[in-house]
């Protein structure tokens, strides 16, 4: 018996409006398997934000069926859907979205609340996650005391602390300078392994090119879905361009 795919969209539409119907997504079918590194690209209004909301279980399809690890999400109540979201998805946002009144460690711990963990276990896991992104020494700093790059690394730590199967990043380098952006992309490359998928929504071609698979969207439809060979070269050789160019 084969494992169900991590994410499966079957003719999914997301429709806004009641009288004038706006198809933000129009009968999109898509499968993302465990371990994939996917980028979703497209101009403004192409439907990639809507796609992000659906993939992150923050939204529900208007038509069609979306399955996460084989479960049809529209059949789940808010509680189960929230639980599934917390277990399967780790979010990374363009604006970092750290909680301002909490320090780095407590921001990471927020993802571990309501999981029947003792405070000590929660603290230990949070420190481990901060260590992965190289932020453990700064765990007592609040967001205002950190640089943009540090805030994004803290947000990544928060996303991975629950060990989710899917990291869902929304324009993760959009608010960063090129050095920090490269740093963050390196971390993504390190985090991509056989059990963890990464999906990055972006309009930055360089970011999209670092993925293994690029899904291009336009007007609520997928217009291209390509495997990228050179993405592997970039991740393997730590930033140097692949020879296939």
């Amino acid at each position: 018996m084969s494992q169900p795919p991590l994410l499966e969209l079957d003719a999914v539409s997301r429709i806004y409006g009641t009288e004038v119907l706006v198809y933000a997504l129009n009968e999109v079918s898509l499968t993302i398997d465990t371990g994939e590194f996917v980028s979703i690209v497209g101009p403004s209004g192409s439907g990639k934000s809507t796609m992000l909301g659906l993939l992150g279980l923050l939204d529900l399809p208007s038509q069609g069926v979306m399955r996460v690890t084989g479960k049809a999400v529209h059949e789940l109540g808010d509680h189960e859907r929230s639980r599934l979201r917390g277990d399967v998805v780790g979010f990374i946002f363009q604006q970092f979205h750290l909680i301002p009144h909490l320090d780095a460690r407590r921001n990471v711990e927020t993802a571990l609340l309501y999981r029947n963990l003792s405070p000590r276990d929660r603290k230990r896991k949070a420190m481990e996650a901060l260590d992965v992104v190289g932020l453990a020494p700064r765990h007592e700093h609040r967001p205002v005391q950190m640089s943009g790059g540090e805030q994004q690394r803290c947000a990544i730590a928060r996303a991975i602390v629950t060990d989710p199967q899917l990291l869902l990043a929304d324009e993760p380098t959009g608010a960063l300078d090129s050095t920090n952006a490269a740093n963050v992309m390196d971390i993504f490359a390190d985090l991509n392994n056989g059990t963890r998928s990464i999906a990055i929504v972006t309009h930055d071609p360089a970011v999209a090119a670092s993925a293994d698979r690029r899904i291009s969207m336009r007007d609520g439809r997928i217009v291209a879905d390509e495997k990228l060979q050179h993405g592997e070269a970039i991740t393997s050789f730590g930033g140097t361009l692949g020879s296939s160019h």
Partner: protein
Amino acid sequence: MRSVRDLVGVAVSGLTSRWSRTLLIMLGPIIGVSAIVAAVGLTESAKGDLQQTLAALGDNLIKVEASGSFGATDPTFSEDVVARVNRLSTVEGSTALLSVTGVITTPYEAAADYYTAFPTPVLTADEHFLDVMNVELVSGRWLNSFDSSTAARSAVVGIGLADEFGFREGNRTIRLNNLDYGVVGVVERYPLDNVFDNAVIIPTSTADADFDVGLEPNTLYVRSDPASTLATEDALPVAINLGGDGEATTLVLSDALEAEAAADSTLQIIVAAMGLLALIVGGVGIANVMSISVIQRSAEIGIRRALGHGRSLIAWQFLLESVAVGLMGGLAGAAVGVGIVIYASRIAGWVHVLAPELDLFGVTLPAHYLGMPTLYLIGVGAALLTSVIAGLYPSVKAAQLEPLETLRLG
């Protein structure tokens, strides 16, 4: 259970990260609960004082004044009125007095004109007075049978008069119509009847000899069996007049004090109602601030939803913040109220009552419930209830926020 603990942790950190705001919205419950506690506590303390006075003085002293037959001037009782009254089985004792009119008292020679214009009351009394009235002497002695039998010019003065002129036993005299009387004692203030405070009290026989006022009294104080004060009051006019045409006005002296205590209950309800009003206004304040807080923290709510916290957890978080404000404000308010009661009671010289019995719309509640003073349970409970109601709307609003809208994706 760990989820509940996590929830409490989140709510507390939400409150402690904004201390000044938290303290500000806590002011509402603090003012409301402290007003309720102080209003009830203070009026009960004042009442407790009154009731203590009542218990000490007894509520069984009846004052009887001769009102005579129609048209009579200066009506009096018969000479043997005390014996007549004491024949009643419910009477424990009685004492007779006569107000002496037309006597100019001069405690102080240079002020003779003043005392002519504003005469000091002069009373005659018998030797039962102290026992029946249950009143003490400040100094000296009371009029005795030797004074009566010899018509001695001895006088006892009220404490008001004594304080004003520093009368002390033996070394001062007081002049009544140019006759010098020796002051042998000073009588304590009697809370139920202030007629003695500034009076000069002399033996009946002396008054008759010096001022020719006769031996018939016009005022009686009757100590009744406490269980049948009202029956005694009813029986007295008949016992006194024995079917004659004289009339007697009776009054249970403690009634005025009891009326005062009852009036305090009304005040208590008014002030407590104002406290309740302050609590409701405080609740509106909580609802306001929490609603604004939900808008300000919409990004945080979106983040928490994205991290897998369900709508109900978000609602609980904000409800718990509101309840924590109510609880802490209520406890602080109770503490402030207790402080007010203790401090004001000390200033007023009352014994403070911190755990009174409560009388709510005819239902009497015990002073303590589950080992806690009922008054504070009610005060803190009211603050809690207010904060729950105030927190409901913002909590539901917070839960209804769509994370997609607050997170500004894409």
